[in-house]
Protein backbone atom coordinates (compact mmCIF):
# COMPACT_ATOMS: atom_id res chain seq x y z
CA UNK A 1 0.00 0.00 0.00
CA UNK A 2 2.23 2.78 -1.25
CA UNK A 3 -0.53 4.98 -2.62
CA UNK A 4 -2.75 6.73 -0.14
CA UNK A 5 -6.44 7.36 -0.51
CA UNK A 6 -5.74 10.98 -1.41
CA UNK A 7 -3.48 9.99 -4.30
CA UNK A 8 -6.08 7.57 -5.59
CA UNK A 9 -8.65 10.28 -5.67
CA UNK A 10 -6.31 12.72 -7.41
CA UNK A 11 -5.42 10.10 -9.99
CA UNK A 12 -9.08 9.44 -10.69
CA UNK A 13 -9.74 13.17 -10.96
CA UNK A 14 -6.92 13.69 -13.44
CA UNK A 15 -8.03 10.78 -15.61
CA UNK A 16 -11.45 12.41 -16.13
CA UNK A 17 -11.80 13.74 -19.69
CA UNK A 18 -11.25 17.48 -19.97
CA UNK A 19 -14.02 19.12 -21.97
CA UNK A 20 -13.69 22.63 -20.64
CA UNK A 21 -13.63 24.11 -24.16
CA UNK A 22 -16.76 22.29 -25.18
CA UNK A 23 -18.57 23.54 -22.10
CA UNK A 24 -17.40 27.10 -22.64
CA UNK A 25 -18.57 26.92 -26.26
CA UNK A 26 -22.03 25.66 -25.29
CA UNK A 27 -22.35 28.31 -22.59
CA UNK A 28 -21.27 31.00 -25.03
CA UNK A 29 -23.88 29.87 -27.59
CA UNK A 30 -26.65 29.87 -24.99
CA UNK A 31 -25.62 33.29 -23.67
CA UNK A 32 -25.51 34.71 -27.19
CA UNK A 33 -28.96 33.30 -27.97
CA UNK A 34 -30.35 34.89 -24.83
CA UNK A 35 -28.75 38.25 -25.61
CA UNK A 36 -30.07 38.09 -29.16
CA UNK A 37 -33.47 37.10 -27.85
CA UNK A 38 -33.73 39.86 -25.30
CA UNK A 39 -33.00 42.60 -27.86
CA UNK A 40 -36.61 42.91 -28.91
CA UNK A 41 -38.16 42.19 -25.54
CA UNK A 42 -37.96 45.80 -24.52
CA UNK A 43 -39.08 45.94 -20.95
CA UNK A 44 -41.42 48.90 -20.72
CA UNK A 45 -41.70 48.60 -17.01
CA UNK A 46 -44.80 47.60 -15.17
CA UNK A 47 -47.82 49.55 -16.36
CA UNK A 48 -48.95 52.11 -13.84
CA UNK A 49 -51.79 49.90 -12.71
CA UNK A 50 -49.81 46.68 -13.24
CA UNK A 51 -48.65 46.26 -9.68
CA UNK A 52 -52.16 46.94 -8.37
CA UNK A 53 -53.61 44.42 -10.80
CA UNK A 54 -51.18 41.69 -9.78
CA UNK A 55 -51.86 42.41 -6.12
CA UNK A 56 -55.63 42.40 -6.59
CA UNK A 57 -55.61 39.09 -8.46
CA UNK A 58 -53.60 37.41 -5.72
CA UNK A 59 -55.87 38.94 -3.10
CA UNK A 60 -58.83 37.66 -5.13
CA UNK A 61 -57.47 34.11 -5.02
CA UNK A 62 -57.09 34.29 -1.26
CA UNK A 63 -60.45 35.96 -0.71
CA UNK A 64 -62.67 34.80 -3.57
CA UNK A 65 -65.94 36.50 -4.41
CA UNK A 66 -68.39 34.20 -2.66
CA UNK A 67 -71.35 35.45 -4.68
CA UNK A 68 -69.72 34.17 -7.89
CA UNK A 69 -68.55 30.93 -6.34
CA UNK A 70 -72.03 29.90 -5.22
CA UNK A 71 -74.06 31.35 -8.06
CA UNK A 72 -75.84 28.39 -9.62
CA UNK A 73 -77.13 30.48 -12.52
CA UNK A 74 -75.76 30.39 -16.08
CA UNK A 75 -72.82 32.67 -15.26
CA UNK A 76 -71.91 31.18 -11.90
CA UNK A 77 -68.77 29.19 -11.25
CA UNK A 78 -70.46 25.75 -10.74
CA UNK A 79 -72.14 25.87 -14.15
CA UNK A 80 -68.96 27.03 -15.89
CA UNK A 81 -66.81 24.39 -14.22
CA UNK A 82 -69.33 21.70 -15.15
CA UNK A 83 -69.29 22.94 -18.73
CA UNK A 84 -65.48 22.95 -18.85
CA UNK A 85 -65.32 19.44 -17.43
CA UNK A 86 -68.02 18.21 -19.80
CA UNK A 87 -66.06 19.55 -22.78
CA UNK A 88 -62.95 17.72 -21.61
CA UNK A 89 -64.85 14.47 -20.90
CA UNK A 90 -66.60 14.30 -24.26
CA UNK A 91 -63.55 15.54 -26.17
CA UNK A 92 -61.38 12.86 -24.59
CA UNK A 93 -63.88 10.03 -25.07
CA UNK A 94 -64.61 10.86 -28.72
CA UNK A 95 -60.93 11.47 -29.42
CA UNK A 96 -59.90 8.21 -27.76
CA UNK A 97 -62.47 6.25 -29.80
CA UNK A 98 -61.57 7.93 -33.10
CA UNK A 99 -57.88 7.33 -32.37
CA UNK A 100 -58.32 3.52 -32.25
CA UNK A 101 -58.82 2.88 -36.01
CA UNK A 102 -56.30 5.58 -36.93
CA UNK A 103 -53.62 4.13 -34.69
CA UNK A 104 -54.16 0.58 -35.96
CA UNK A 105 -53.85 1.94 -39.49
CA UNK A 106 -50.56 3.64 -38.66
CA UNK A 107 -48.91 0.73 -36.82
CA UNK A 108 -46.25 -0.81 -39.04
CA UNK A 109 -46.83 -4.32 -37.69
CA UNK A 110 -50.51 -4.27 -38.76
CA UNK A 111 -50.57 -2.53 -42.14
CA UNK A 112 -48.00 -2.14 -44.93
CA UNK A 113 -45.48 0.67 -44.47
CA UNK A 114 -46.80 3.11 -47.12
CA UNK A 115 -50.30 3.14 -45.57
CA UNK A 116 -48.79 3.60 -42.11
CA UNK A 117 -46.75 6.54 -43.38
CA UNK A 118 -49.85 8.25 -44.79
CA UNK A 119 -51.70 7.96 -41.48
CA UNK A 120 -48.63 9.06 -39.53
CA UNK A 121 -48.44 12.20 -41.64
CA UNK A 122 -52.12 12.76 -40.83
CA UNK A 123 -51.44 12.41 -37.09
CA UNK A 124 -48.53 14.83 -37.36
CA UNK A 125 -50.71 17.31 -39.21
CA UNK A 126 -53.27 17.28 -36.41
CA UNK A 127 -50.54 17.71 -33.81
CA UNK A 128 -48.82 20.64 -35.49
CA UNK A 129 -51.85 22.94 -35.67
CA UNK A 130 -52.27 24.47 -32.19
CA UNK A 131 -55.57 23.65 -30.50
CA UNK A 132 -56.53 27.32 -30.40
CA UNK A 133 -56.28 27.48 -34.19
CA UNK A 134 -58.34 24.29 -34.51
CA UNK A 135 -60.96 25.98 -32.36
CA UNK A 136 -60.91 29.02 -34.63
CA UNK A 137 -61.55 26.74 -37.61
CA UNK A 138 -64.27 24.67 -35.95
CA UNK A 139 -66.06 27.71 -34.62
CA UNK A 140 -66.98 28.50 -38.23
CA UNK A 141 -68.58 25.07 -38.52
CA UNK A 142 -70.38 24.64 -35.22
CA UNK A 143 -70.87 28.25 -34.19
CA UNK A 144 -69.64 29.53 -30.83
CA UNK A 145 -70.44 27.62 -27.66
CA UNK A 146 -69.31 24.58 -25.72
CA UNK A 147 -70.13 22.24 -28.61
CA UNK A 148 -67.29 23.85 -30.56
CA UNK A 149 -64.98 23.01 -27.67
CA UNK A 150 -66.06 19.37 -27.76
CA UNK A 151 -65.40 19.05 -31.49
CA UNK A 152 -62.06 20.85 -31.22
CA UNK A 153 -60.85 18.67 -28.38
CA UNK A 154 -62.00 15.49 -30.09
CA UNK A 155 -59.86 16.33 -33.10
CA UNK A 156 -56.86 17.62 -31.15
CA UNK A 157 -56.85 14.61 -28.84
CA UNK A 158 -56.57 12.22 -31.80
CA UNK A 159 -53.03 13.45 -32.47
CA UNK A 160 -51.42 12.70 -29.14
CA UNK A 161 -53.58 9.70 -28.23
CA UNK A 162 -52.89 7.97 -31.56
CA UNK A 163 -49.17 8.54 -31.16
CA UNK A 164 -49.18 6.73 -27.82
CA UNK A 165 -51.61 4.03 -29.00
CA UNK A 166 -49.29 3.26 -31.93
CA UNK A 167 -46.40 2.66 -29.54
CA UNK A 168 -48.57 0.27 -27.53
CA UNK A 169 -49.74 -1.58 -30.63
CA UNK A 170 -46.22 -1.92 -32.01
CA UNK A 171 -45.11 -3.44 -28.71
CA UNK A 172 -47.78 -6.16 -28.93
CA UNK A 173 -46.46 -9.55 -27.95
CA UNK A 174 -47.24 -11.62 -31.06
CA UNK A 175 -46.25 -14.83 -29.31
CA UNK A 176 -49.63 -14.77 -27.54
CA UNK A 177 -51.43 -14.54 -30.89
CA UNK A 178 -49.39 -17.41 -32.29
CA UNK A 179 -50.20 -19.65 -29.37
CA UNK A 180 -53.89 -18.77 -29.66
CA UNK A 181 -53.60 -19.67 -33.34
CA UNK A 182 -52.11 -23.01 -32.38
CA UNK A 183 -55.08 -23.61 -30.08
CA UNK A 184 -57.40 -23.09 -33.05
CA UNK A 185 -58.94 -19.76 -32.09
CA UNK A 186 -60.68 -17.71 -34.75
CA UNK A 187 -59.88 -14.04 -35.44
CA UNK A 188 -62.52 -12.71 -33.07
CA UNK A 189 -61.31 -14.89 -30.20
CA UNK A 190 -57.73 -13.87 -30.93
CA UNK A 191 -58.68 -10.21 -30.65
CA UNK A 192 -60.76 -10.81 -27.52
CA UNK A 193 -58.15 -12.86 -25.63
CA UNK A 194 -54.87 -11.90 -27.27
CA UNK A 195 -55.10 -8.24 -28.26
CA UNK A 196 -57.56 -6.48 -25.95
CA UNK A 197 -56.00 -7.60 -22.65
CA UNK A 198 -52.59 -6.41 -23.84
CA UNK A 199 -53.78 -3.00 -25.01
CA UNK A 200 -56.61 -2.12 -22.63
CA UNK A 201 -54.52 -0.84 -19.72
CA UNK A 202 -52.27 1.38 -21.78
CA UNK A 203 -55.18 2.70 -23.86
CA UNK A 204 -57.15 3.71 -20.78
CA UNK A 205 -54.03 5.15 -19.17
CA UNK A 206 -53.36 7.28 -22.25
CA UNK A 207 -56.96 8.50 -22.37
CA UNK A 208 -56.87 9.54 -18.71
CA UNK A 209 -53.57 11.34 -19.23
CA UNK A 210 -55.08 13.16 -22.18
CA UNK A 211 -58.10 14.09 -20.06
CA UNK A 212 -55.76 16.00 -17.74
CA UNK A 213 -54.39 17.95 -20.68
CA UNK A 214 -57.83 18.53 -22.16
CA UNK A 215 -59.15 19.85 -18.87
CA UNK A 216 -56.43 22.51 -18.82
CA UNK A 217 -56.90 23.20 -22.51
CA UNK A 218 -60.66 23.56 -22.14
CA UNK A 219 -60.10 26.54 -19.87
CA UNK A 220 -58.28 28.43 -22.62
CA UNK A 221 -60.45 27.48 -25.60
CA UNK A 222 -63.14 29.76 -24.23
CA UNK A 223 -61.00 32.71 -25.30
CA UNK A 224 -61.99 32.08 -28.93
CA UNK A 225 -65.60 31.34 -28.03
CA UNK A 226 -65.48 27.58 -27.57
CA UNK A 227 -67.30 27.50 -24.23
CA UNK A 228 -66.04 26.78 -20.77
CA UNK A 229 -64.59 29.05 -18.13
CA UNK A 230 -62.12 30.78 -20.47
CA UNK A 231 -64.42 33.43 -21.87
CA UNK A 232 -65.88 34.67 -18.56
CA UNK A 233 -62.36 34.71 -17.15
CA UNK A 234 -61.15 36.78 -20.08
CA UNK A 235 -64.14 39.09 -19.71
CA UNK A 236 -63.53 39.57 -15.99
CA UNK A 237 -59.87 40.35 -16.72
CA UNK A 238 -60.84 42.83 -19.40
CA UNK A 239 -63.35 44.67 -17.25
CA UNK A 240 -61.09 44.74 -14.20
CA UNK A 241 -63.20 42.64 -11.82
CA UNK A 242 -60.16 41.29 -10.04
CA UNK A 243 -62.03 39.47 -7.31
CA UNK A 244 -64.02 37.57 -9.93
CA UNK A 245 -60.75 36.71 -11.67
CA UNK A 246 -59.41 35.51 -8.36
CA UNK A 247 -62.38 33.24 -7.73
CA UNK A 248 -62.24 31.79 -11.26
CA UNK A 249 -58.51 31.10 -10.90
CA UNK A 250 -58.96 29.54 -7.47
CA UNK A 251 -61.59 27.10 -8.77
CA UNK A 252 -59.48 26.39 -11.83
CA UNK A 253 -56.43 25.54 -9.73
CA UNK A 254 -58.48 23.34 -7.40
CA UNK A 255 -60.20 21.40 -10.22
CA UNK A 256 -56.97 20.82 -12.12
CA UNK A 257 -55.08 19.71 -9.01
CA UNK A 258 -57.86 17.34 -7.88
CA UNK A 259 -58.13 15.69 -11.28
CA UNK A 260 -54.37 15.45 -11.61
CA UNK A 261 -54.25 13.62 -8.31
CA UNK A 262 -57.12 11.27 -9.26
CA UNK A 263 -55.65 10.49 -12.66
CA UNK A 264 -52.17 9.84 -11.24
CA UNK A 265 -53.76 7.45 -8.76
CA UNK A 266 -55.71 5.56 -11.42
CA UNK A 267 -52.77 5.42 -13.82
CA UNK A 268 -50.47 4.09 -11.11
CA UNK A 269 -52.97 1.35 -10.42
CA UNK A 270 -53.27 0.53 -14.11
CA UNK A 271 -49.50 0.33 -14.43
CA UNK A 272 -48.73 -1.66 -11.27
CA UNK A 273 -51.93 -3.55 -10.68
CA UNK A 274 -54.03 -3.37 -7.52
CA UNK A 275 -51.90 -2.86 -4.44
Amino acid at each position, binding site marked *: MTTTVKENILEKLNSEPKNLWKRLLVTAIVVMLVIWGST*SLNYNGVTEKGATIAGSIIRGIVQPELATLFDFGPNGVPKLVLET*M*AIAVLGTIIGAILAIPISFLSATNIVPKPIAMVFRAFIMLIR*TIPSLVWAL*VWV*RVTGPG*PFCGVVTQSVCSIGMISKMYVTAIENLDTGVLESLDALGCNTFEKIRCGVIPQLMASFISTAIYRFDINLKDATTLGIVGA*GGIGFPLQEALGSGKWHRVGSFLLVLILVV*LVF*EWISNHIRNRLARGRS
Partner: protein
Amino acid sequence: MANKLERKTPLFDRIIKPEHIVLENGHSVDRPKSRLPLILLIGVIVVYVSMDATNFNIQRFLSRINQLPVILGQIFTPNFSYIGNVIPSLIETMKMSIVGTVVGCVLGLPLAILASSNINKNKPTLLFCRFLLSIMRSIPTLIYATIFALVFNLGAFAGAAAISLFTLSIVAKMLYEAIETIDMGPYEAMTSFGATSLQAFWAACLPQILPQYFDNCLYCFEMNVRASSILGYVGAGGLGMLIRERTGFRQYHDLGMILLTLFVVVWVIDQINDWIRSKLS
Protein backbone atom coordinates in the same frame (compact mmCIF):
# COMPACT_ATOMS: atom_id res chain seq x y z
CA MET B 1 -49.88 -12.93 11.28
CA ALA B 2 -51.83 -14.52 8.47
CA ASN B 3 -54.76 -12.21 9.06
CA LYS B 4 -52.59 -9.14 8.66
CA LEU B 5 -51.48 -10.18 5.19
CA GLU B 6 -55.02 -10.61 3.96
CA ARG B 7 -56.17 -7.86 1.66
CA LYS B 8 -59.04 -5.65 2.74
CA THR B 9 -62.20 -6.56 0.84
CA PRO B 10 -63.06 -3.80 -1.60
CA LEU B 11 -66.34 -1.96 -0.94
CA PHE B 12 -67.81 -3.27 -4.18
CA ASP B 13 -67.36 -6.92 -3.11
CA ARG B 14 -68.89 -6.23 0.28
CA ILE B 15 -72.07 -4.82 -1.28
CA ILE B 16 -72.37 -7.25 -4.16
CA LYS B 17 -71.27 -10.62 -2.76
CA PRO B 18 -68.80 -12.60 -4.86
CA GLU B 19 -69.92 -15.88 -6.37
CA HIS B 20 -68.90 -18.79 -4.13
CA ILE B 21 -67.62 -21.79 -6.06
CA VAL B 22 -66.86 -25.14 -4.39
CA LEU B 23 -64.36 -27.13 -6.41
CA GLU B 24 -64.50 -30.91 -6.84
CA ASN B 25 -61.68 -31.45 -4.36
CA GLY B 26 -63.54 -29.60 -1.64
CA HIS B 27 -61.65 -26.30 -1.81
CA SER B 28 -63.69 -23.19 -2.34
CA VAL B 29 -62.90 -19.97 -4.19
CA ASP B 30 -64.63 -16.61 -4.39
CA ARG B 31 -65.14 -15.18 -7.83
CA PRO B 32 -65.83 -11.43 -7.62
CA LYS B 33 -68.73 -10.22 -9.74
CA SER B 34 -67.75 -8.26 -12.83
CA ARG B 35 -67.44 -4.51 -12.33
CA LEU B 36 -68.12 -3.82 -15.98
CA PRO B 37 -71.88 -3.07 -15.62
CA LEU B 38 -71.20 -0.53 -12.86
CA ILE B 39 -68.42 1.17 -14.85
CA LEU B 40 -70.62 1.26 -17.95
CA LEU B 41 -73.51 2.73 -15.97
CA ILE B 42 -71.30 5.49 -14.53
CA GLY B 43 -69.85 6.11 -17.99
CA VAL B 44 -73.28 6.47 -19.57
CA ILE B 45 -74.43 8.90 -16.86
CA VAL B 46 -71.27 11.01 -17.19
CA VAL B 47 -71.56 11.13 -20.97
CA TYR B 48 -75.26 12.01 -20.79
CA VAL B 49 -74.65 14.86 -18.31
CA SER B 50 -71.74 16.12 -20.41
CA MET B 51 -73.76 16.06 -23.62
CA ASP B 52 -76.48 17.99 -21.89
CA ALA B 53 -74.04 20.57 -20.51
CA THR B 54 -72.35 21.19 -23.86
CA ASN B 55 -75.49 21.32 -26.04
CA PHE B 56 -74.14 18.39 -28.00
CA ASN B 57 -75.88 18.57 -31.34
CA ILE B 58 -74.69 16.13 -33.96
CA GLN B 59 -77.30 17.29 -36.49
CA ARG B 60 -76.02 20.86 -36.57
CA PHE B 61 -72.53 19.44 -36.88
CA LEU B 62 -73.44 17.23 -39.84
CA SER B 63 -75.46 19.91 -41.59
CA ARG B 64 -72.59 22.40 -41.45
CA ILE B 65 -69.65 20.02 -41.86
CA ASN B 66 -69.43 21.07 -45.54
CA GLN B 67 -67.94 24.36 -44.24
CA LEU B 68 -64.85 22.52 -43.05
CA PRO B 69 -63.39 21.48 -46.44
CA VAL B 70 -63.82 25.09 -47.60
CA ILE B 71 -61.74 26.48 -44.73
CA LEU B 72 -59.20 23.64 -44.70
CA GLY B 73 -58.90 23.97 -48.49
CA GLN B 74 -57.94 27.61 -48.03
CA ILE B 75 -55.50 26.78 -45.24
CA PHE B 76 -53.81 24.12 -47.35
CA THR B 77 -53.30 26.47 -50.27
CA PRO B 78 -51.06 28.95 -48.41
CA ASN B 79 -50.52 32.44 -49.72
CA PHE B 80 -46.74 32.33 -50.22
CA SER B 81 -46.43 36.06 -50.82
CA TYR B 82 -47.46 36.59 -47.20
CA ILE B 83 -44.19 35.17 -45.89
CA GLY B 84 -42.70 38.67 -45.64
CA ASN B 85 -45.16 39.48 -42.87
CA VAL B 86 -44.69 36.15 -41.14
CA ILE B 87 -40.91 36.23 -40.69
CA PRO B 88 -40.66 39.21 -38.25
CA SER B 89 -43.40 37.74 -36.05
CA LEU B 90 -41.77 34.34 -36.25
CA ILE B 91 -38.46 35.79 -35.06
CA GLU B 92 -40.27 37.52 -32.21
CA THR B 93 -41.90 34.21 -31.25
CA MET B 94 -38.53 32.47 -31.33
CA LYS B 95 -36.93 35.15 -29.18
CA MET B 96 -39.78 34.91 -26.71
CA SER B 97 -39.47 31.15 -26.40
CA ILE B 98 -35.65 31.14 -26.19
CA VAL B 99 -35.52 33.75 -23.43
CA GLY B 100 -38.53 32.24 -21.66
CA THR B 101 -37.08 28.74 -21.75
CA VAL B 102 -33.59 29.73 -20.58
CA VAL B 103 -34.87 31.94 -17.75
CA GLY B 104 -37.37 29.29 -16.68
CA CYS B 105 -34.81 26.48 -16.77
CA VAL B 106 -32.22 28.46 -14.81
CA LEU B 107 -34.72 29.51 -12.13
CA GLY B 108 -36.13 26.00 -12.02
CA LEU B 109 -32.87 24.44 -10.83
CA PRO B 110 -32.73 25.95 -7.30
CA LEU B 111 -36.46 25.45 -6.81
CA ALA B 112 -36.13 21.78 -7.80
CA ILE B 113 -33.30 21.31 -5.29
CA LEU B 114 -35.46 22.85 -2.56
CA ALA B 115 -38.35 20.58 -3.55
CA SER B 116 -36.46 17.25 -3.49
CA SER B 117 -36.89 15.36 -0.26
CA ASN B 118 -33.44 13.71 -0.26
CA ILE B 119 -31.54 17.02 -0.34
CA ASN B 120 -33.79 19.38 1.55
CA LYS B 121 -34.49 17.89 4.96
CA ASN B 122 -36.49 20.91 6.10
CA LYS B 123 -40.09 19.73 5.84
CA PRO B 124 -41.93 23.11 5.78
CA THR B 125 -39.86 24.64 2.96
CA LEU B 126 -40.06 21.37 1.04
CA LEU B 127 -43.86 21.22 1.22
CA PHE B 128 -44.17 24.94 0.47
CA CYS B 129 -42.03 24.61 -2.68
CA ARG B 130 -44.00 21.64 -3.94
CA PHE B 131 -47.30 23.34 -3.22
CA LEU B 132 -46.15 26.45 -5.07
CA LEU B 133 -44.99 24.36 -8.04
CA SER B 134 -48.28 22.46 -8.35
CA ILE B 135 -50.27 25.69 -8.25
CA MET B 136 -48.06 27.27 -10.87
CA ARG B 137 -48.35 24.21 -13.06
CA SER B 138 -52.11 24.13 -12.98
CA ILE B 139 -52.58 27.51 -14.65
CA PRO B 140 -52.35 27.37 -18.45
CA THR B 141 -49.71 29.50 -20.23
CA LEU B 142 -52.36 31.39 -22.12
CA ILE B 143 -53.90 32.66 -18.90
CA TYR B 144 -50.48 33.71 -17.59
CA ALA B 145 -50.00 35.57 -20.85
CA THR B 146 -53.36 37.34 -20.49
CA ILE B 147 -52.53 38.45 -16.98
CA PHE B 148 -48.97 39.51 -17.84
CA ALA B 149 -50.19 41.44 -20.87
CA LEU B 150 -52.17 43.54 -18.40
CA VAL B 151 -49.46 43.77 -15.75
CA PHE B 152 -46.58 44.54 -18.13
CA ASN B 153 -47.52 46.21 -21.37
CA LEU B 154 -48.77 44.28 -24.35
CA GLY B 155 -45.94 42.68 -26.24
CA ALA B 156 -43.23 40.08 -26.30
CA PHE B 157 -42.05 40.77 -22.77
CA ALA B 158 -45.35 39.54 -21.33
CA GLY B 159 -45.06 36.42 -23.49
CA ALA B 160 -41.52 35.70 -22.36
CA ALA B 161 -42.56 36.17 -18.73
CA ALA B 162 -45.50 33.78 -19.14
CA ILE B 163 -43.32 31.18 -20.80
CA SER B 164 -40.58 31.40 -18.21
CA LEU B 165 -43.05 31.01 -15.35
CA PHE B 166 -44.64 27.94 -16.91
CA THR B 167 -41.29 26.42 -17.91
CA LEU B 168 -40.02 26.98 -14.39
CA SER B 169 -42.86 24.98 -12.90
CA ILE B 170 -42.53 22.08 -15.31
CA VAL B 171 -38.72 21.86 -15.31
CA ALA B 172 -38.63 21.99 -11.52
CA LYS B 173 -41.17 19.17 -11.24
CA MET B 174 -39.37 16.90 -13.71
CA LEU B 175 -36.07 17.72 -12.07
CA TYR B 176 -37.01 17.03 -8.48
CA GLU B 177 -38.42 13.69 -9.55
CA ALA B 178 -35.04 12.98 -11.15
CA ILE B 179 -33.08 14.20 -8.12
CA GLU B 180 -35.01 11.89 -5.83
CA THR B 181 -33.88 8.82 -7.77
CA ILE B 182 -30.14 9.58 -7.74
CA ASP B 183 -27.51 7.61 -5.86
CA MET B 184 -26.75 9.48 -2.62
CA GLY B 185 -23.61 7.42 -1.89
CA PRO B 186 -21.09 9.89 -3.40
CA TYR B 187 -22.82 12.78 -1.63
CA GLU B 188 -22.50 11.09 1.75
CA ALA B 189 -18.91 10.10 0.99
CA MET B 190 -18.03 13.71 0.24
CA THR B 191 -19.74 15.08 3.34
CA SER B 192 -17.85 12.52 5.40
CA PHE B 193 -14.62 13.95 3.92
CA GLY B 194 -15.63 17.31 5.30
CA ALA B 195 -17.22 18.94 2.26
CA THR B 196 -20.06 21.38 2.89
CA SER B 197 -23.44 20.24 1.61
CA LEU B 198 -23.26 22.73 -1.27
CA GLN B 199 -19.81 21.45 -2.33
CA ALA B 200 -21.00 17.88 -2.03
CA PHE B 201 -24.12 18.60 -4.08
CA TRP B 202 -22.11 20.40 -6.73
CA ALA B 203 -19.60 17.61 -7.20
CA ALA B 204 -21.60 14.47 -6.39
CA CYS B 205 -25.22 15.10 -7.34
CA LEU B 206 -25.07 17.63 -10.16
CA PRO B 207 -23.19 15.35 -12.59
CA GLN B 208 -25.88 12.71 -12.04
CA ILE B 209 -28.80 14.98 -12.84
CA LEU B 210 -27.30 17.22 -15.54
CA PRO B 211 -28.02 14.97 -18.57
CA GLN B 212 -31.62 14.60 -17.44
CA TYR B 213 -31.83 18.34 -16.79
CA PHE B 214 -30.60 19.29 -20.26
CA ASP B 215 -32.98 16.77 -21.77
CA ASN B 216 -35.89 18.34 -19.89
CA CYS B 217 -34.81 21.80 -21.01
CA LEU B 218 -34.80 20.73 -24.65
CA TYR B 219 -38.21 19.12 -24.25
CA CYS B 220 -39.54 22.35 -22.73
CA PHE B 221 -38.05 24.37 -25.55
CA GLU B 222 -39.89 22.26 -28.13
CA MET B 223 -43.12 22.64 -26.20
CA ASN B 224 -42.60 26.38 -25.74
CA VAL B 225 -42.09 27.07 -29.44
CA ARG B 226 -45.49 25.52 -30.10
CA ALA B 227 -47.11 27.24 -27.14
CA SER B 228 -45.62 30.68 -27.75
CA SER B 229 -47.01 30.75 -31.28
CA ILE B 230 -50.50 31.29 -29.91
CA LEU B 231 -49.68 33.54 -26.95
CA GLY B 232 -50.01 36.58 -29.19
CA TYR B 233 -53.71 35.86 -29.44
CA VAL B 234 -54.12 37.48 -26.03
CA GLY B 235 -51.68 40.26 -26.83
CA ALA B 236 -48.34 38.78 -25.81
CA GLY B 237 -46.53 39.27 -29.11
CA GLY B 238 -45.38 36.94 -31.85
CA LEU B 239 -47.26 34.85 -34.39
CA GLY B 240 -50.45 34.74 -32.37
CA MET B 241 -51.18 38.38 -33.14
CA LEU B 242 -51.05 37.59 -36.86
CA ILE B 243 -53.23 34.52 -36.34
CA ARG B 244 -55.81 36.63 -34.57
CA GLU B 245 -55.76 39.34 -37.21
CA ARG B 246 -55.90 36.98 -40.18
CA THR B 247 -58.71 34.80 -38.81
CA GLY B 248 -60.58 37.98 -37.92
CA PHE B 249 -60.43 39.00 -41.58
CA ARG B 250 -61.13 35.39 -42.62
CA GLN B 251 -57.91 35.35 -44.66
CA TYR B 252 -57.38 31.62 -44.34
CA HIS B 253 -54.77 31.51 -47.12
CA ASP B 254 -52.59 33.73 -44.95
CA LEU B 255 -53.35 31.60 -41.90
CA GLY B 256 -52.18 28.62 -43.95
CA MET B 257 -48.87 30.36 -44.61
CA ILE B 258 -48.42 31.12 -40.89
CA LEU B 259 -49.10 27.50 -39.99
CA LEU B 260 -46.78 26.22 -42.71
CA THR B 261 -43.89 28.35 -41.43
CA LEU B 262 -44.63 27.22 -37.89
CA PHE B 263 -44.66 23.60 -39.03
CA VAL B 264 -41.29 23.95 -40.73
CA VAL B 265 -39.73 25.71 -37.73
CA VAL B 266 -41.07 23.16 -35.25
CA TRP B 267 -39.79 20.34 -37.44
CA VAL B 268 -36.32 21.89 -37.76
CA ILE B 269 -36.11 22.46 -34.00
CA ASP B 270 -37.17 18.88 -33.35
CA GLN B 271 -34.39 17.65 -35.63
CA ILE B 272 -31.78 19.89 -33.96
CA ASN B 273 -32.91 18.73 -30.53
CA ASP B 274 -32.73 15.09 -31.55
CA TRP B 275 -29.17 15.72 -32.70
CA ILE B 276 -28.24 17.42 -29.43
CA ARG B 277 -29.85 14.56 -27.48
CA SER B 278 -27.82 11.97 -29.37
CA LYS B 279 -24.68 13.98 -28.43
CA LEU B 280 -25.74 14.16 -24.78
CA SER B 281 -26.20 10.45 -24.27
